[in-house]
């Protein structure tokens, strides 16, 4: 029957695509734990490469984590209120501001980094601290936090909830903290996961902004790809996967959970459409 053939054909095609995406990852993971990649698995499994990676690149791992958490803190504090304001003031100005906030995602990381160096490169202390990289990360991840919260706010009728709270006597700040924020939680959560994931994996901006003292994990990876043997590079990549996969899984689980729960509404998927490469 034609339909059955079509099904198997499509399935085969899809499996091929999956293989294309997954096989290199598997290879790289294996390479990171094999004694000698050229000999293959026969040479035995080992953790020594990971050990070497740790001794060489431990600070990059710490720094990436530090920047990611700091980035999250900053985007929460400045992004969530901003999303609320944009949700309140629906008008042309809000649309324009939204477009502007999205710019750092549209403009290539190189350009942003260049611009930052031009203007702030002169402040030595700032230029050589991790705060410089943090700035780039915040600019890049802020739109995702804002959009995520904005998406949730547009689905729940937060204005009516606020009016309800106001009719009961709640002031502006009381309404914001007891009614708006708790109900925006799914968006805040999805946005947070995205910010963390993006920050940990950010390269384009960070490569330009970094100094030998402020290397993040992706920067270290680029280093190791260029100069280290394959096993170490693979082991380092494996460490990166270990850090990022839990975040990805959490994001997928979150999006599936929300999709299952709502019935008729437009469900925003917490995926980033424009991770730069």
């Amino acid at each position, binding site marked *: 029957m*034609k339909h059955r053939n*079509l099904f198997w054909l*499509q*399935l085969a*095609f*899809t499996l091929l*695509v*999956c293989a294309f*995406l997954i*096989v*290199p*990852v598997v*290879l*790289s993971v294996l390479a990171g734990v094999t004694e000698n990649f050229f000999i293959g698995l026969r040479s035995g499994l080992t953790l020594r490469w990971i050990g070497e990676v740790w001794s060489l690149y431990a600070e990059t791992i710490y720094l990436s984590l530090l920047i990611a958490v700091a980035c999250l803190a900053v985007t929460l504090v400045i992004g969530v209120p*901003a999303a*609320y*304001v944009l949700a309140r003031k629906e008008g042309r100005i809000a649309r324009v501001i939204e477009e*502007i*906030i*999205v*710019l*750092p995602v*549209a*403009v*290539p*990381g*190189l*350009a*942003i980094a*260049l*611009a*930052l160096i031009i203007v702030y490169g002169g402040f030595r202390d700032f230029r050589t601290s991790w705060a410089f990289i943090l700035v780039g990360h*915040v*600019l890049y991840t802020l*739109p995702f936090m804002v*959009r995520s919260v904005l*998406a949730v706010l547009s689905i729940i009728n937060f204005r009516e909830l606020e009016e309800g709270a106001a009719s009961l006597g709640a002031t*502006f700040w009381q309404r914001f903290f007891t009614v708006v924020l708790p109900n925006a939680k799914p968006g805040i959560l999805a946005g947070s996961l*995205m910010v963390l*994931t993006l920050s940990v*994996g950010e390269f*384009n901006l960070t*490569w330009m902004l970094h100094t030998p003292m402020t290397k993040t994990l*992706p920067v270290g*990876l*680029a280093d190791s*790809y260029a100069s280290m043997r*394959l096993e170490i590079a*693979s082991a380092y990549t494996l460490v*990166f996967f270990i850090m990022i996969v839990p975040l*990805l899984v959490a994001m*997928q689980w979150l999006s599936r959970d929300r999709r299952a729960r709502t019935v008729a509404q*437009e469900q925003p*998927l917490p*995926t980033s*459409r*424009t*991770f*730069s*490469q």
Partner: protein
Amino acid sequence: MDRRDYPQLIIMILPAAIVFTAFFLVPMARLVIVGGSGEEHWAAYASIITKPRHLESMVATLALSIGVTVAALTVATVSGLFLVRNRFPGREILLSMLTFPLAFPGVVIGFLVIMLAGRQGLIGEVSKLLSGDKIVFAYSMAGLFTGYLYFSIPRVILTIMAAAEKLDPALEEAARSLGASPWRVVRDVILPALKPGLIASGAICFATSMGAFGTAFTLATNIDVLPMTIYTEFTLGVNLAGAASLSIILGLVTWAALFIARSLSGATVSASG
């Protein structure tokens, strides 16, 4: 209630506004000026057409981005439609596998391409076994293409699936009841309905490919895509103005593509990041 809340609303958006102005708007403005401050002054912005190296770079980048976009859309449409319409054990796992590489930075993807198609890559070993010739394409245009395809497919597939879920089965049933073959149904009913989603995700794919840096950096090919050209102008050529002007042009192209994507798909894309 609205007017009275203005003071609080301004306080709430102020931090974001300040950070953004200080660290993005002002520097970008300076970048535009610096771009025009080199020897050629504002003519530097036309260098994309006037300097052969820059033009080649732009053409290569455009060709690559468009090629990858078409390929990614095709692959994603076939697989995406398949996954939306069929339920079978293991579907969820397939879906996770397809979207899993979403967060990989370009550098890692470049590395993965090397693992697949580099000098000691899988494809090389397998082809050597089969035919005696080792196929190595990681460091050529094909390698770049592979890498770009790698990060594009997950992105596009999710958008297509979201659009496909909203298709009205009644339209297809109507077409079939009128005698249309499956291929005609795809051509006349499904693809037109998916068009906005296709254009939107295509534009995003295009924009991402245009601005991709990490992948090309790792693969260190002879082909210079525009981001690499910018990078080398800045670091090796110490040509700040050249780098700046090229960056602005690249930024405008990617911004335009994303703008098209957002306006075609309406608020959903912009709101969902």
